[in-house]
Each structure stands twice: as C-alpha cells, then as structure tokens.
C-alpha cells in the first residue's frame, strides 16, 4: 500500500478520481429517477394525519345482509371481481339434537360472492335453525398488525390516523402479508400484482366523507367516526357507550381496533 510515487500509481489515482467524479452525476440521476417514481401528490390539502384517529364499529344485530356495502366498496375502490375488501358472512347455527344436552348444534358459515347481490335462502330447513345472523367483515385496523410486521420492504404500515394501508408503488408483491393476516382481509391484486386491502376509504375520509360501505349501509350496521374529534351526538361514541363491544380474535395479540357488538361465540 505504501507504494512510491511512480507513473503507474499516479495514473491509477487519476483514473480513480475521474471515475468518482463521473459517478456523482450518475448517482444523482439515479436518485432523481427513484424519486420521480414516487412523486405524485394530489391529496386534499390541509389534512393532517396526526390530528385524527378513524375507527369503524359494526353492529351485528343491525346487519340485514343486503350486500349493498360490498357493492358500494367494489364500485368505490375498483376492487377486482373475485376479491373483496369487505364482505358479509352468514352464520347459521342449527338446533342441537333432542336429548343431547347441548345448547346449540352445528355452525355453518357461508358468504356467496362475498354477499354481493344479497343472500339466497339458506339450504338448511328453517325448522332446524336455532339462530342465524350476518357478520360484516373488513380490515380490523390492528394496532399490532401482523401484516405490517412481516412486510420486508415497509410497503404496508399503520398510518398515524389509525388505518393500515398498502403503498402499492413500493410493494414488491411477495404476499407475506396476505398469509400473515389472521382475518383474511388481504388479497393479491391481479392487475397491479401488489397486496390490496381495505383502506377505510382513505381518499373519502381525508375529504370529510364517510367510507363507501358506511355511506350506503341502509341499517346503520356500520358506524364510523373520528375518536379525536367526536361530532355532535357522535354515532361512534354513542355506539361504544351503549354496547358491549369486542374485537375479533383478540387472543392473537393483534389488538384489533374495529369494534363488534352482538358477536356470538361462533364468530371467528
């Protein structure tokens, strides 16, 4: 390394310097190119994500299984035909066998086409049904979300305003998050080949509108609000005050934020 000042060494050093100088603009161009890919911003001005905390709650006793929310979501977010950002499940619990000593029979769950177009009558005879109800499902907005923990590139994240989002320009489409979500709320978008999920209609809530499913639900089974800025007679606050609520699969430690009222033990 010590090498004396020879012609050979001087030329080597000069070449190294020239390469360094040449590499600088190339590096700058490279960085600018990377930035350009990610530089589009037409978001509503004046929205501060740190000032809000959005939440959706679901009232199982209010859901009538019309499926309008599923269609509203599809139209609002151009959701691919065979995938769902929100869907409705029908639970049918049969009567226990006479003399069995059980309180309830078997549980059957179906969600034909996610509940789009409503539900046809169940194949289980009416007399065998102990009880039946609809459960709307969507992203549970976990505080401790497994999907963002497994993302290798930081393309999915919990936003400051309480929504778990996917950065589709940064997602590499590995699908880890889809496997990680215990609620099955994610899917691979067949056109963008990136992970896709409920955004809580982020483009609507930042503009002061309600999510599409909440807007269209005819029976107020979906309740939406801002925990940091309750409006006058806030439906979400009233709902949480008046109901015993719980999150889905809370035992998994995901800390689901979406609240459900009227859940039966069978609901997973």
């Amino acid at each position: 390394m010590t090498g004396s000042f020879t012609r050979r060494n001087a030329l080597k050093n000069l070449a190294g310097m020239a390469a360094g100088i040449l590499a600088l603009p190339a590096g700058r161009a490279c960085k600018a190119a990377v930035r350009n890919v990610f530089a589009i911003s037409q978001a509503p001005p004046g929205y501060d994500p740190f000032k809000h905390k959005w939440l959706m709650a679901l009232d199982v006793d209010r859901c009538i299984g019309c499926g309008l929310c599923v269609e509203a979501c599809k139209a609002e977010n151009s959701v691919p035909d065979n995938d769902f950002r929100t869907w409705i499940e029908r639970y049918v619990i049969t009567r226990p066998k006479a003399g069995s000593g059980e309180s309830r029979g078997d549980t059957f769950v179906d969600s034909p086409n996610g509940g789009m177009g409503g539900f046809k009558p169940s194949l289980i005879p009416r007399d065998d049904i102990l009880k039946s109800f609809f459960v709307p499902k969507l992203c549970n907005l976990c505080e401790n979300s497994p999907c963002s923990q497994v993302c290798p590139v930081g393309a999915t994240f919990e936003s400051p305003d309480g929504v778990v989002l996917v950065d589709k320009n940064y997602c590499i489409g590995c699908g880890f998050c889809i496997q990680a979500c215990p609620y099955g709320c994610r899917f691979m978008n067949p056109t963008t080949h990136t992970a896709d999920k409920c955004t809580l209609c982020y483009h609507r809530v930042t503009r002061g509108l309600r999510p599409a499913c909440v807007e269209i639900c005819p029976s107020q089974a979906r309740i939406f609000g801002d925990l940091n800025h309750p409006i006058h007679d806030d439906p979400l606050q009233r709902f949480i005050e008046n109901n015993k609520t719980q999150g889905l699969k809370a035992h998994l430690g995901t800390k689901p934020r979406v609240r459900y009222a009227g859940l039966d033990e069978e609901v997973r």
Partner: protein
Amino acid sequence: MKRLLKMPPQITRLVLLTLVIVCIYFGARHLLTPQSFGQYGHYRANALQEIAAREPFWAGRNTCDACHGEIVRKLAAAEHKGLSCETCHGPSKAHVENPEVKLPRLSYGQCVRCHEASPSRPAWLHQITPVKHYTGSVCTECHVPHQPNEVP
C-alpha cells in the same frame, strides 16, 4: 500509532475492503431510499397522500341536501331516516356535477332486496314474503319510500 500503521498488509487490505463495502452500502442506501421514507415510520410518508388522491365515487348524503333539502328533511323524520339517498337511488356523482343527468327509476327489486323475509335477518326489520304479500311489481302503489308509514 506506529504499531497500527505497521499492521500486516493482509489485515490492512481487509480493513480497507470492509470500509469500501460499508461505504457502498451507505451510498446505495442513500441513493435508493425513496423520498419521505422514514418521515413518519418505516414507510413512505408520501404514500398517504397518494392513497388519498383517489377520487371518491359516491357523492354522499350531504351533497343531495343542497338541492333536495325538502325531501332529505322528510326522509330524516321517517322510518327510512338512516338511509343515504344513494343507497336506493344509486351512484349520483354524475347527477351532482350535471343535474341534467337523471338517475334511473327505482324498481321492485330494490325494496325486496332488504325487506324479503329471511331467518337470518334481525327481528326489528320489517320483512315480507313477496308472493304472499303482494303479487304486483309496484311497491309504491301502497308505500311511500320516503315515508314508509304513510299511505299514498
């Protein structure tokens, strides 16, 4: 210090190589990390704005109030008060932007979709068995959708 400089050449080479690799790593990270990554957390903060940039599809109930305030107030006092206009009338954004664009007329199917009897539906909902309840196809013969309890 002198002893340090007198390190065996293979060690010096190793140290230099390590330094070069570390420099390449930091250089590449600097060049390849997109703008705004890490501003709020381990993600691109700009993604929030990009996701919010999408145009809403449903106009929302408050939009209807501007021109159809009377009907909106009527509805707010009746059984169907929780419904958004677009729940029955369908997507209305085109109509809001240009009132000449008329919304499609409502049909029998839209009433039945919510009010057809089903054992899965909650008891508070008014439910009918269409064939027993009425054989025609114009629900509005007997019901006023904006005031379901009134008789026309």
